[in-house]
């Protein structure tokens, strides 16, 4: 065999595709993974928006009551500070239920469906 022949064999070998392969439905799988991922982010932002709206509404209600009925507001604050642990726990549980409903369970179900 001469030098040129070996050279051309090497060149052709370089141009041969390697034996690595992906499943036939890889494009669909990649797309659904992207959709799931972006869905998770959408769900998370939706939850955060919801929390922000609730906090804003509570803030607005507090401001309004401060102007209209200061006594009632002070009573509510006294109740909250007197039962701080219970109130914090109720807020935490409600918040967790909302988070689980809006984000966590949806994410777990989509992961579960994937596997």
């Amino acid at each position, binding site marked *: *065999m001469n030098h040129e022949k070996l050279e051309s064999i090497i060149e052709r*070998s*370089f141009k041969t595709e*390697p034996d690595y392969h*992906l499943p036939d439905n890889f*494009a669909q799988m990649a*797309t659904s993974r*992207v959709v799931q*991922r972006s869905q998770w982010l959408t769900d998370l932002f939706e939850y955060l928006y919801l929390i922000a709206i609730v906090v804003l509404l509570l803030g607005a209600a507090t401001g309004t009551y401060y102007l209209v009925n200061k006594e009632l507001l002070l009573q509510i604050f006294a109740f909250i500070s007197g039962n701080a642990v219970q109130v914090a726990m109720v807020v935490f549980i409600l918040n967790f239920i909302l988070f689980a409903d809006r984000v966590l369970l949806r994410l777990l179900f989509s992961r579960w469906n994937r596997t």
Partner: protein
Amino acid sequence: MQHFSANCCQTSSMNDAELINQILNGNMNAFTFLVTRYQKLVVHITGRLIQRQDELEDVCQDVFMKVYQNLGKYRNECKLSTWIATIAYNTSINYLRKFKKGDEINPDDSTALRNLTDFNSVDYEKADLYRYIREQIENLPVQYRTVLTLFHLEEFSYQEIEQITGMPEGTVKSYLFRAKALLKEKLKFVVDNNSLKTVKEISNES
């Protein structure tokens, strides 16, 4: 269903710019088509670099995830294939750094030559040679495999390979030359005359 197939036909005739616009407007069929169009490029680069079929699908999915997440940042400064190849290269290199030994990244030519197995066939049939060379490409250092894949298989230019890998053009040319020289060194006994240069001679020249 008719709507879906009509959509598929539309996307298949789109050029890259139209495809990107469609994806950015939320058309996921367009993204599926983009993956179909470039999955071969990604699997060649990723496969040659990580060399693990069982991990390949996950790494390729990561590549396309990054493509989707960063598509809004893509500017027409380079071809879409070059941009996707850059993501595939960086993702694969990060995978190698994370899960493989560091010494694979920067071996010298003598180590690389030792890693190549000998060609044992006595009557060196052409098919044996092809198979042998293809096997040995997988035993070359990672940079050599990368530039060989990008230059010969994907037909990127030197400038594009420089963009993708960050290696200077001279280095790319040197790696291509040395990869071929290493294989020739192993196969020099199949050549009649003694016209082949040894790796040592080539290394001294470059």
